[in-house]
């Protein structure tokens, strides 16, 4: 090495020589780490309960979302109750229904929209009932966009009940019919005897009263199953109305033709009369169809099956047996819920393997890489 390089090297050696006196950076570092650790552990103590609570809340929310039975009345085993509530809302929105069932007016918000200036009326000369807000569907087929839609909805409900006293429940169900409002029992049958007595009833009740009757039936006996189906017939009713208007227009034109040509040849007059007869026949059929639809919409069908409990449930319960039975039921429900949760977890774990495996690999690689960097940083 030449002289300038030696000078440089000596200067560099001096520059990288510590002459700052006694230092104990390691001790300061140790104290710093201990202090930070104490602070972190204090923070962790506070953080864990919060995190635990949040995790518990998340688990509860997840379970509530994934297990439909958890948020439902124990005696109901189908989604029909919610459907029934939705349907009630639909019925309440229909002014037609509100007018058809004046006795039910307090249950819906329809009366609030009904005004004294618009009572239900019968369209003159047609023999056709028009139940709406003082507005005939035939006369004004295109309502304003902001006007409520007159919906014609047919509702059918079924309920399976279980009770020790089938006969009493059968009579109670029949007693729910309001004959003054035009309701009736379409079918009522009792079969079997003794412990195998069974009842079957089909009620036709006002569309707006279905919920009320079902509520009453839930108090009469234990509900095994309930189901509600709603069918929207608005399109069919509208179509029938349009066809009726058309036929009536043809009828009026044919009548006008006969009036204008009194001296027409007999053959022509007979031809027009034949046409008139056919048109009137079609009008009558359409009116009958529409009356049938209105009747179906006005009275909903509720089918009730009443069965006795299984023979072992009818035994005289021992003292404390109710508590044990309730405990057993709760345990069974809990086990079901646990089973469903586990199956959901397994489903998500297995179904998402395509996602989990790469995620785990990337996560592991990331962890290793970060740990390596942290060690060498």
């Amino acid at each position, binding site marked *: 090495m030449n002289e300038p390089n030696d000078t440089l090297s000596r200067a560099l050696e001096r520059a990288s020589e510590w*002459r700052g006196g006694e*230092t104990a950076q390691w001790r300061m570092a140790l104290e710093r780490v201990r202090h930070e650790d104490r602070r972190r552990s204090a923070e962790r103590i506070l953080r864990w309960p919060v995190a635990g609570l949040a995790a518990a809340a998340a688990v509860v929310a997840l379970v509530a979302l994934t297990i439909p039975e958890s948020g439902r009345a124990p005696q109901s085993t189908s989604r029909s109750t919610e459907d029934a509530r939705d349907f009630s809302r639909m019925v309440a929105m229909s002014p037609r229904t509100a007018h058809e069932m004046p006795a039910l007016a307090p249950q819906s918000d329809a009366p609030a929209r009904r005004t004294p200036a618009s009572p239900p009326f019968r369209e003159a000369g047609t023999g056709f009932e028009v139940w709406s807000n003082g507005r005939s569907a035939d006369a004004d087929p295109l309502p304003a966009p902001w006007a409520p839609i007159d919906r014609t909805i047919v509702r059918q409900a079924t309920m399976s009940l279980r009770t020790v006293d089938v006969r009493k429940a059968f009579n109670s169900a029949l007693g729910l019919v309001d004959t003054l409002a035009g309701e009736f029992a379409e079918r009522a049958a009792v079969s079997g005897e003794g412990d195998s007595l069974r009842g079957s009833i089909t009620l036709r009740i006002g569309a707006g009263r279905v919920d009320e009757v079902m509520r009453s039936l839930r108090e009469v006996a234990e509900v095994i199953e309930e189901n509600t189906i709603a069918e929207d017939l608005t399109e069919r009713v509208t179509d029938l109305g349009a066809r009726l208007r058309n036929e009536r227009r043809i009828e009026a034109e044919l009548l006008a033709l006969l009036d204008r040509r009194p001296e027409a040849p007999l053959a022509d007059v007979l031809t027009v009369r034949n046409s008139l007869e056919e048109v009137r026949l079609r009008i009558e059929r359409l009116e009958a169809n529409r009356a049938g639809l209105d009747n179906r919409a006005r009275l909903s069908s509720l089918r009730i099956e009443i069965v006795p409990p299984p023979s072992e449930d009818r035994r005289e319960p021992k003292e404390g047996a109710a508590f044990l039975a309730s405990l057993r039921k709760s345990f069974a429900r809990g086990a079901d819920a646990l089973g469903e949760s586990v199956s959901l977890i397994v489903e998500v774990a297995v179904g998402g393997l395509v996602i989990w495996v790469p995620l785990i690999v990337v996560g592991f690689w990331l962890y290793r890489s970060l*740990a390596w960097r942290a060690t060498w*940083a």
Partner: protein
Amino acid sequence: MKPRGTDGSVTDEALLARFSGGDDSALGALAERHESRLLGLALGLCRGNESLAREAVQEAWVRVIRHARAFRGRSSFSTWVYRITINRCRDLNARERRASRPVAASSSSPDARDSSGVQEVEWLQTVLDRLDERGRETVILCHLRGMTHEQASAVLGIPVGTLKTRMRRAMRTLSDAAGSEAKR
């Protein structure tokens, strides 16, 4: 890991293992062996700024303490701790640059208080500024007391041949810079 070195003394790795086991005095023993050289290295890399050098070494010890259990012994302890110190110096220099504070030598060093010492430090920093970061690290590390080329290459993670090439190139640049500084 051998508990004792060839000279019969306890190895760095054994001391680190003892420290991981809860013996703080083992860390003191490690510091006794390495701290002054680590401070020298940091001083050189932090352009003679003592407070920055102390901070860098303290940070390095913090990392050693935190990751002592994670140390797998794939390199020697000294390689690991020097590498950490170099990385900390890089970070601190970058921090100072971001804060627009030129890293300057502090005047607290007793040697730097006399005018010749100050002049030499300033001259050396002017010359070292001609090098890039890698070159500066190579030169300072290789001029550290007791540091062999093999150890320096292990710390920098490069082969010895590459280290020597870098060293030659850096020294040529430095001697050119020293020559031009002398002409002024």
